[in-house]
């Protein structure tokens, strides 16, 4: 078995009942070479300091719980290997969110934003499931599949330069999911999403910095979704508004 190596971790702590502001705390962790950052955080929690709080669950990169800033970059800590980082490794809560405690951030604003874009299939009339599925070709599926891969891990929100200054911005994940439903051949709700997507918090606030797509661990490319939605939104506006004496 390969040797353990002791790695220094600097972890940002914030306990609202005792701390005025966040402080760095240092832990030396004996790491196996195949460990991910989350393994080290769990080691600290179990063996060194049970007062450290963090979220985690699946440890296979799909539940989206364990996003943190690792040396300043948003990462799923279950997928960030300690061997890929120089010593010391700095771990902090995701940027652009209020800290609840330690590495746990407040996600309520995202849930509200998600609800606002109506991320569900909207039909004028529901079909009885006994009558079978909606036909959808592999090509229809490929129009939106990539944008359905979002695990809501919030790395894109932590990376987004717009959210830093405009916390009301709906953000990459919510907008990509809105686009995902708009692109789904089964959906008829595009018009119902138009208002929120074109609102001041919607797609037009995106400055296309592309940071979201660079940090996305699932290849969703929310920046592309937003740009495509801008084009669709413009065409829709032209179709709906222009004939009635708009432009």
């Amino acid at each position: 078995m390969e040797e353990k190596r002791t790695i220094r971790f600097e972890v940002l702590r914030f306990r609202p009942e005792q701390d005025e502001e966040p402080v760095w705390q240092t832990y030396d962790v004996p790491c196996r070479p195949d460990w991910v950052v989350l393994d080290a955080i769990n080691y600290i929690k179990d063996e060194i300091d049970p007062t450290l709080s963090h979220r985690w669950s699946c440890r296979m990169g799909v539940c989206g719980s364990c996003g943190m800033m690792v040396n300043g970059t948003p990462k799923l800590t279950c997928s960030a290997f300690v061997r890929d980082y120089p010593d010391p490794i700095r771990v902090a809560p995701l940027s652009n969110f209020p800290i609840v405690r330690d590495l746990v951030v407040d996600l309520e604003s995202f849930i509200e934003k998600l609800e606002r874009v109506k991320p569900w299939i909207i039909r004028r009339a529901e079909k009885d499931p006994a009558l079978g599925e909606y036909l959808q070709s592999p090509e229809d599926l490929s129009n939106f599949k990539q944008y359905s891969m979002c695990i809501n891990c919030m790395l894109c929100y932590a990376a987004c330069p717009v959210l830093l200054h405009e916390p009301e911005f709906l953000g990459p994940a919510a907008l990509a999911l809105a686009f995902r439903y708009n692109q789904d051949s089964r959906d008829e709700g595009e018009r119902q999403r138009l208002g929120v997507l074109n609102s001041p918090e919607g797609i037009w606030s995106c400055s296309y910095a592309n940071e979201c797509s660079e940090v996305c661990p699932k290849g969703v490319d929310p920046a592309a979704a937003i740009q495509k939605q801008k084009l669709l939104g413009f065409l829709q506006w032209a179709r709906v508004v222009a004939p009635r004496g708009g432009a």
Partner: protein
Amino acid sequence: MEVIRHDVVLVGGGGAGLRAAIAVAEADPELTVACLSKVYPMRSHTVSAEGGAAAVAREDDSPELHAYDTVRGSDYLADQDAVELFVEEAPIELTRLEHWGCPWSREEDGRIAVRAFGGMSVERTWFAADKTGFHMLHSLFQTSLKYENIVRLDETFVTRLLVEDGRVRGVVALDLRTGSARAVLGRAVVLATGGAGRIFPFTTNAAIKTGDGMALAYRAGVPLKDMEFVQYHPTGLPGTGILITEASRGEGGVLLNANGERYLERYVPNKMELGPRDMLARAAILEFQAERGFKGTYGPYVHLDLTHLGEAKIDERLPFVRELAIHYVGIDPVKEPIPVRPVVHYMMGGIDTDGNGATELPGLYAAGECASVSINGANRLGSNSLSECLVFGARAGRAAAAFAREVDDRNEPAVPEQARDEEGRIEALRGKSGGERIVDLRREMTSAMERGCGVFREEDEARHTLQTVAQLKGRYTDLGLEDRSRVFNTEIVSALELGHMLDVAEAVALAALERKESRGSHTRTDFPARDDENFLKHTLVRFAPQGPKLDDKPVTITRWQPEERKY
């Protein structure tokens, strides 16, 4: 103490819980349903399911055939009336999920695609590439957002059921954000908290799978059923236990030992890689015992070879497998075989329910992995569990809504006192002094479970495990905790979860000790044969203050008489 009242209280926001929530919401828009989850619902472990969900979809298939495969797979311990309900309703439920946006993989003509799976005699497993659970969970979660009468209480950890006058009255839960206990009262409660794989050291299960709902029901006097039946998945990554889906074999992958042999020839010659999980897990362990496994840092393993499938098929059908293998073991399955070994995956047992999810306790329902209806008996077939979450989540939701409409809130004078008692129990844990550490008790529990309740079991080891768990429960009362704070105190959650796991582990060990036969996933080296005369019955374990009590109940057989199970 804050008291909230809803009509139905739902514990758990995974596949079964969200399906139940929507069923309540649709059954009666006047009812409100509180959905309590210890995480955000989209973090639930349904998210990790990969391969697919079973339901009859093609001309060459029939509900009878799906039912027969399921009953045979269960080694005749499934309740056949429940299986018949299940196979009839599964296609409707999966179609409903299609209408709710689930991106099922498709045929060229636009119909749902289906794939082969272990123990299924025809192709009937619906799939969304190899992220089926992820897509199902997010489709359900996003759909649930449109119902105004679903009230989510996220990151709220339920610690006790409130029971009075012979029926359930609600729950007490710890709000992680504030650290305060709240009473959430309701006329019906649905438990959908999933499995308990974390009672073992090596598991595919997420950290949150700590048997909470099972322990809550058990402590409220509801029996746990068939807890000895623990499914080992044949193909997990060594070290992490990350699941490599059975779909990789459904798509044509083969298992090879260190001599390069397709060793399943010796065990399931007619089904080979598509044999049922119990038999494939045993086969791997027997290969290890015969020194035909590869030797690795994390113990012996075998190879799962997908190289002959080609890059295009792997990328279309198994992209997540490729991603996981490259990322976590540094192996690209397009070029090299993946190292795999059996890993704890699923609890066939759970809270004893009928086909509507109803338990012995009026008003209390359960669905999904935490329940045992039982369609899975002694061994679940791969891809039946996602469908089970939908079928029985919906049934439990509808039944809970009907119950909530029929009863009133009266006659619960003792409920506030019960709630305050529970608040006191939680508060007493905060910074509690004591000589034992959570991590030590957890480690000793998981290692005892692996020793006495693993793939192969025998009398002395099972008894020793049962005794060890009982001792750990004693030591648990001397637990010491360091975190005195309220906001997001995860140390308290870990302590409460450990308490749940110890109860569940004890039930598993007792049931494993007392079933003196081999059936499905339960293999006793000292009783290698199935014994229908004495053991064609469900095991029940009931809570008692002095220790768990064993009971049993008959298996319902409708159309398929037990026969020898050969593949």
